[in-house]
């Protein structure tokens, strides 16, 4: 690891101030991606500004169906929050399968979505839940937040404060983990937000598979809006040309996995 300066931000405005003052500063939360990258000397930020000591930024608030999860909430906290479990168990389930116990007790939801690793789990949930990403500057719809592999709409000195969403009527996440890393090779989050009979609001977020990063499977959403059933997906196609390919999964295999996981998510949500 190259030498770096480490500071703990006192509050939201202090964090942004510190970053602007640094030569090449980086916000750090759980550090589950950034620290290994630095240890391998593949990243060399001049300053690390730690967001995890900002008071109140890790709270999980549930009011009826309205959910707000502070950016500093760890995966373990999301996985085990009793109130969240009542209104949106699918997100708890998703969090409970991220990494291993060490990762789940260090890694945060804010860090995960800000990093937007194409194989991370949370981004698919944010899309499917129609979440709003609350930053230190503004509110961004999830649909506009994830822009490309490891890219988000966040400006240089901007960071995620919280995510908020309305809990869906039902939802489920099905993940096929990479045998080696156990990151998602295909993870599909299906959420049924109700809506009118004529226009049912179904959202499907897909992670791990696409060469463009996390995306909404609009044809699946349409098909499920007509009939929320496993069979409804049979008419849908996942184009292998859009998929990632690596030593663990060819694009054809990943395309297959997206369909299988979508069906399993629908079955679990039904």
């Amino acid at each position, binding site marked *: 690891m190259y030498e770096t300066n480490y500071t703990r931000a006192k509050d939201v405005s202090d964090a942004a101030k510190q970053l602007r003052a640094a030569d090449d500063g980086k916000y750090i939360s759980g550090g589950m991606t950034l620290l290994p990258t630095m240890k*391998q*000397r593949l990243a060399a930020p001049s300053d690390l500004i730690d967001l995890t000591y900002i008071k109140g930024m890790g709270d999980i608030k549930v009011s009826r169906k309205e959910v707000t999860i502070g950016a500093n909430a760890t995966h373990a906290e999301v996985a085990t929050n009793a109130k969240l479990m009542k209104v949106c168990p699918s997100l708890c389930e998703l969090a409970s399968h991220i990494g291993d116990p060490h990762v789940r007790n260090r890694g945060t939801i804010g860090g995960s979505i800000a990093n937007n690793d194409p194989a991370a789990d949370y981004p698919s949930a944010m899309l499917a839940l129609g979440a709003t990403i609350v930053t230190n500057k503004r509110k961004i719809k999830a649909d506009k937040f994830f822009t490309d592999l490891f890219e988000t709409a966040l400006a240089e000195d901007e960071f995620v404060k919280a995510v908020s969403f309305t809990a869906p009527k039902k939802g489920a996440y099905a993940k*096929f983990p990479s*045998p*080696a*890393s156990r*990151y998602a090779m295909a993870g599909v989050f299906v959420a049924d937000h109700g809506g009118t009979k004529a226009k049912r609001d179904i959202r499907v977020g897909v992670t791990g598979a696409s060469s463009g990063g996390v995306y909404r499977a609009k044809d699946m959403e349409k098909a499920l809006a007509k009939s929320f059933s496993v069979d409804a997906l049979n008419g849908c196609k996942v184009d292998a040309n859009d998929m990632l390919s*690596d*030593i*663990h*999964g*060819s694009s054809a*295999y990943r395309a*297959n*996995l997206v369909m*299988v996981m979508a069906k399993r998510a629908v079955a679990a949500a039904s």
Partner: protein
Amino acid sequence: MGKQGIGAPVLRKEDKRFLTGKGKYTDDMKIAGMHYAAFVRSPHAHAKIKKINIKAASKMPGVAAVLDGKQLTGDGIGNIICGWMVHSKDGSPMNMGAWSAMATEYVRYVGDAVAMVVAETQEQAVAAAEAVDVDYKVLPAVVSAVDALKKGAPQLHPEAKNNLIFDWEIGEEAATDAAFKKAANIVEIDIRNNRLVANPMEPRSALVQYDAAEDHYTLHTTSQNPHVARLLLSAFYQVAPEHKLRVIAPDVGGGFGTKIYVYPEEIACLWAAKRAGVEAIKWTSTRSEAFLTDAHGRDHVSTAKMAFDKNNKILGMKVDTIANLGAYMSLFSSATPTYLYATLLSGQYNIPNVHANVRTVYTNTVPVDAYRGAGRPEATYIMERMMTTAARQLGVDPAELRRKNFITSFPHQTPVIMCYDAGDFGVSLDAAMKASDYANFEKRRKSSKRKGKLRGIGMSCYIEACGIAPSAAVGSLGAGVGLWESAEVRVNPVGTVEILTGSHSHGQGHETTFAQLVSDRFGLPAENIQVVHGDTDKVQFGMGTYGSRSGAVGMSAIEKALDKVEVKAKKIAAHVLEASEGDIEIKDGEVMVKGTDKKLLWHEVCLAAYMAHNLPEGMEPGLKEGAFYDPANFTFPAGCYICEVEVDPDTGVTTIEQFVAADDFGKIINPMIVEGQVHGGLAQGIGQALLENVVYDDEGQLISASYMDYTMPRADDLPNFKISTTETLTPSNPLGIKGCGEAGAIGSPPAVINAITDAIGNNDLTMPASPQNVWAAIQAAE
């Protein structure tokens, strides 16, 4: 006997320190004035070194020296050698290319060391190594052994034309061909044995202490055989004379073969300590360096044919193998794909004619050498996939085809050197079939089918050659060393015992099992017995631990030394008790005259030996005996493994529903430790079958260079194993021990693959049977 003697499941003495974090590993050691080394490594798989610019690096803080390969060879440091001479079938010796500890002109794999920095801190060393500017002319690279043999392939070493190291054969080709002509059926398979990284938990490490006044070196290192390391470092690599070099392999966290060899870093650090004028240098591999530089295992491509008569009796076996040895010839790299491999191509079967041809090849990859099983897993994988494939093609039950061809009388001379001394293959097969409820498998297949899953069952009847090895025999086959073992038993005046052994424990539990021998012999409690190993200053000489040899060979040496101690102790007791030597019996810590109440306590005899006030006429004082043991033959552990899997056809995911291992290891000293060895071996074998795979891209970059991409077996990949053992003693050593360290890794891969191919109805499946590969095989079959 007693509670801590032979056959007792004594808890491991060493686990207290391991489980409480108190083990002392090389990287734990600190010495005043200690510097750190970092290596500059080639980012290219094949390149010519045009220039090394060390100016910037030399000026960086804390840097004591920046050294390169030309300086190293210029100081007379010798090239790294392969210690086993194998001749091609035309009689020519193997074509060994030069390998210096740091490259001088060419780099031949990604990770090849080019230069080293010695600095006051590890951070400084790493930073300065990064600042060393190497100008390369990149050359075309080749990573597959098959491609390396092709016309026009990039050439690695001037010594090895067409990258061919040797073209070797075993068995009678003409007789085998003649047998094939008479065949009623011939079965043919193409087999790839995947390439693996050993991944011991502790990465390699070396700590050199140089005493300038005495011109003496002490090397702490992660070695499975510190004496062999010292011999190589002094006699071949010329870093220090043998009497001026002490090598200590303290606690070592797993080896699996990969820590047998002396590596470039140890040589370079020894040389650099004196050259840089520092008191001590430490280097510890990062996990990334371990992937890039630890010797890899396996990597064979083979075609095999088996001929059957009309009664399904085997007439002959023919195998053609290309083995990838990587960029340089590692220490045992020539023996692994030849004498440790093709000599087992008769398996458990009576095969009158066997012929195998092996070509070994240089490629721009990490050197390949022995990894848990070493050659024997490669042979077993071919034999046992062949037997199951043949059973399917001949339309007979795989168990019955095997049983029909089992060797049933011993000794049995195979056509490929080995003479099996003892065994009972049918007993293991019966035990495994019973434990797996083989008879009712089809019912279970149906119930899986109802859930939408594909169920399959597969077996493997393995045999291996262990207890490596009779010195004269391996000498005649080209080995550069003898493979005996030594031991010394020191009985202290108070009756406690120290066993000094040339074996080295890096996880095997020797400190417990070796003590059990003494406990068994004299009835002493295990806590009164200390096992000393891994230090060339303490143990006179030894050959180390690999090839499942520590029980069969190492303990046999201890047994011989104990014989001598017992004889002397009895003589002393007979003298003191005024009895006949033949009437003395040692039992439960007492030395007694049989049939009388006359006795001495064990420690009274020991004390008498050292007081020397009343010893038999002419007897030397003391109670300390040594022995060397050279085995009469290899030993032949064998057994039957049955694996039952369920495959998810939608994703290709395989789950192991049941795994049965019925092994015959001969005499078992500690059944709990043996069970642990089987578990570990199975985990590695199943890891090879389902998960692990080294992948290089076409430019020679290692793609699977971290745990993000190299799939290690985890607990949830494995079932609870059903394990049983039988004890058919080997007549080849005094205890009847065959060895158990490698069986799991040798026998399990074909059982797993036979089960999956049974489930999916497609025999064309390559290891690892990853979800993607299994899914693709299912798609191909549809």
